[in-house]
């Protein structure tokens, strides 16, 4: 049997299919390059190449079906089988010719992306291709084998894809404790996964050889095709749900609607809702208990300005900083008073007074019990003010612009000023960019002598990152994890979650270096965008935006592993708290786009199971 003749025949047989697939896989990268060129950036492609490569398993399946379909028509099958053809060799040649052609087609957008970036940007780009390519090899082999048996292109493609999907989902269905496709598969179990992906094609190939040799023919009909379609949809939904919303809801409690953002805070080990109710959990059931029969609406009512023409800005902006002393409960806040001049774009705010206040909860309401005037912290008093606060043991550290004060809160009814300093270090902050992943960088170490070094480092990192953030909640959380004496912190970027490690520190600076990242999957990118709220607690990193909460295990030094994902598309997540047992309290507002009146909104407290 002449091998070259078979290969030539195969290429000729496939040429139009190959060209069609090439067109399909190149359309997005080329379109992106054209758009870039029109915008004056140059003729290059980046993101669309990855997308095109991601879709390559679908195309290789088509090529696989086309590869043998031409030979398996019953009458044509008799034609070549009646010749002295070594079926195994013939099928092997066809299989590998198609496979190599498929891989070359997948390589085209990658090569185009690399070359176009070298030419226009001076350097190539990293495109993650190993996994899509191995999956493409798997789908190719499965579809090839299916078509040898089924002998109908569309049906074989569907069955092949169904089998492929099943194999991809299978590890998540086995008791392997796999949760996170990216972390578990790519970093932890990639070898295992790769084994499945490579064993499946090998098995499919051997099966195809025997099926062709022994003329195995599975007759399908429309009904079975519909079953296959339903099966495919079911498996895809399983994969989708396992990757998107896998944190179990233990209890859901509708709560009374009120204006403003709902808050969940900590008072000792208990969660406080809206400043007036403890959230108690009994047998996975939520109950709200008013704090000592206190006021119905927390301390918001106390925030109206007492001087006409003046306005007040409070820190924490939402939520509270609480402290329990015996049976009493206190809260702390910074109030900054300002008046305004001008209107519209030329409006200016003039900050004049800043107070640190403590409140004690009485039977009726929150009563101010002590006030410290820290207005001398104001320097540049026009327009902007930066506030932050954190309680460390009995020390309350309050930041106002470039100054900090340390206050003893042993008796919250009598706040004692311990230290007050203005620091150039607080003026500086580092806005972390992609460039910071390439080299070591330094963050100013806040020289608050009254707290331990560990807390200083944590505060410095949190201040640096949070200082200018809109949702500055360092009063209740931190992005820093301390594990085995090592500090690391986490930020959420557009495409990934990034871990930075503290490598060293001296009297003035904390030195940090990029450690690892965990890219978002397409599904994650679809459901969430701007994770403004994020913190670390007990080795887990929590981040959420309006609709999505994600929880990651960050205890390992080498990887960030997703533990769970919770999505409610018509809901806004307003606040959350992590309980001592790891269960999560979530405060959400049902606010679909079709609602026109705010009183139609509904609010819920969710108790979510600890994702492990």
């Amino acid at each position, binding site marked *: *049997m*002449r091998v070259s*003749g*078979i290969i030539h*025949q195969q290429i*000729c*047989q496939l040429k139009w299919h190959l060209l069609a697939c090439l067109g399909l896989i190149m359309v997005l990268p080329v379109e992106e390059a054209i758009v870039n060129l029109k915008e004056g950036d140059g003729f290059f492609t980046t993101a669309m190449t990855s997308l095109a490569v991601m879709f390559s398993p679908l195309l290789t399946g088509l090529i696989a079906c086309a590869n043998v379909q*031409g030979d398996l*028509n019953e*009458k*044509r099958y*008799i*034609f070549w*089988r*009646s*010749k*002295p*053809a*070594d079926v195994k060799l013939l099928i092997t040649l066809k299989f590998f010719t198609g496979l190599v052609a498929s891989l070359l087609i997948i390589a085209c957008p990658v090569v185009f992306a690399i070359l176009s970036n070298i030419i226009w940007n001076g350097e190539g780009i990293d495109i993650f291709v190993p996994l899509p390519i191995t999956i493409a090899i798997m789908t190719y082999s499965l579809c090839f084998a299916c078509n040898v048996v089924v002998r109908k292109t569309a049906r074989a493609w569907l069955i092949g894809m169904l089998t492929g999907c099943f194999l991809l989902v299978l590890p998540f269905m086995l008791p392997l404790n796999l949760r996170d496709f990216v972390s578990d598969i790519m970093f932890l179990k990639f070898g295992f996964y790769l084994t499945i992906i490579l064993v499946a094609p090998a098995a499919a190939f051997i099966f195809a050889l025997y099926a062709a040799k*022994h*003329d195995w023919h599975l007759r399908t009909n429309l009904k079975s095709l519909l079953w296959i379609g339903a099966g495919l949809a079911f498996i895809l939904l399983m994969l989708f749900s396992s990757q998107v919303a896998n944190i179990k809801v233990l209890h859901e409690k509708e709560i009374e609607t009120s204006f403003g953002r709902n808050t969940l805070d900590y008072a000792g080990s208990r969660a406080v809702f809206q400043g007036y109710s403890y959230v108690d959990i009994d047998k996975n059931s939520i109950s709200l208990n008013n704090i000592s029969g206190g006021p119905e609406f927390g301390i918001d009512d106390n925030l109206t300005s007492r001087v006409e023409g003046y306005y007040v800005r409070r820190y924490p902006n939402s939520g509270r900083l609480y402290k329990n002393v015996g049976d009493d409960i206190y809260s702390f806040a910074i109030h900054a008073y300002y008046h305004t001049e001008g209107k519209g774009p030329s409006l200016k705010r003039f900050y004049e007074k800043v107070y640190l206040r403590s409140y004690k909860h009485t039977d009726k309401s929150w009563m101010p019990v002590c006030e410290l005037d820290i207005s001398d912290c104001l320097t540049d008093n026009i327009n902007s003010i930066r506030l932050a606060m954190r309680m460390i043991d009995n020390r309350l550290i309050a930041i106002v612009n470039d100054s900090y004060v340390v206050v003893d809160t042993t008796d919250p009814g009598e706040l004692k000023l311990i230290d007050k300093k203005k620091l150039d270090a607080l003026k500086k902050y580092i806005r972390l960019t992609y460039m910071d992943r390439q080299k070591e960088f330094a963050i100013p170490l806040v020289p608050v002598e009254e707290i331990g070094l560990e807390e200083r480092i944590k505060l410095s990192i949190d201040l640096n990152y949070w200082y200018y953030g809109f949702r500055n909640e360092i009063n209740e959380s931190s992005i820093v994890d301390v594990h085995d004496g090592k500090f690391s912190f986490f930020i959420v970027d557009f495409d990934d979650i990034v871990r930075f490690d503290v490598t060293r520190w001296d009297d003035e600076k904390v030195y940090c270096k990029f450690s690892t990242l965990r890219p978002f999957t397409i599904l994650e990118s679809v459901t969430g965008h701007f994770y403004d709220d994020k913190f670390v607690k007990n080795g887990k990193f929590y981040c959420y935006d309006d609709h999505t909460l994600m929880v990651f295990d960050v205890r390992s030094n080498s990887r960030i592993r997703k533990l769970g994902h919770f999505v409610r598309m018509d809901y806004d997540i307003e606040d959350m708290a992590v309980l001592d047992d790891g269960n999560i309290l979530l405060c959400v507002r049902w606010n679909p786009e079709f609602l026109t009146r705010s009183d139609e909104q509904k609010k819920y407290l969710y108790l979510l199971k600890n994702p492990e």
Partner: protein
Amino acid sequence: MTESAIKIEGLHFSYGKKQVLKGVDLEVPKGSIFGFLGRNGTGKTTTIKTLLGLQKPRAGRCIIGGLDSFTQTLEVRRRIGFMAEDQQMYGWMTISRIIKWVAGFYANWDYKFADELADRLGLPKNTKVKALSKGQNSSLALLLALGHRPDIVILDDPTLGLDPIARKDFLRHVIDLLQSNGVTVFFSSHLLYEIEPVADHIAILDKGVIIKASKTEQLRESIRKFVLAPKPEANFKGLAGILDVLKVGDNVSITVEDCNEEKRGKLKGMSANSMTEVALNLDEIFEAYVIGNRGRELSV
């Protein structure tokens, strides 16, 4: 004893629960043109597929040119030429390309002979297969079956779908090409007039078994139809070898196999007056074997 080119012994084959071949026994003499007759769906193609080793029988064996079809499949296929019914080839290939492609399977492909065949069959070499007429398509299939000069050629209903002129043309080529070379031809068809002029041996397959196999001339000689007006006391049931009995008015038409003087005498004795003896063509013989009532409805 004549040497066999093809020998089939006790061949059984089933598609699932449907038993198609129920013990086919057949011997094709070397150098003969063997007509394999049967109605559509009686198992002709199944027999041939099994013969070629394309499917495994439930029982029995096939020997082609002294080789076992199932254990020496590749060698068998090297030595035979096969043309399937309504054969489909790769439409996008040109004739020269497909000749080259098929030649790749044979170490002994005779390119010169193939070229000659192409010329004789009037095949335009640079034309794509999909552009060929049905007749040309059959000619090409024949060329591809003969290009390696096989000893045994198996043709499975080769003229299926051809118009009468193309069919005759094709058969003329087959006879021209094969008869003179001493090649054994196993020719399956349900069109009897197609086989009659060329086949020197005949086998009739019906419902999965061979109901008659013999030399064509012998078959013609041994089958006779008698038309007679039976006496009232005439009893045909005692007569062996009745294939078909038909009552036409007062007369009865009886088709008898293995006809000899004894049978003629018996029939004459049952006739009230003169009896007419008619020689049958292959078509009529086939009909008598396949749909003849075997005297079961005899009520004379």
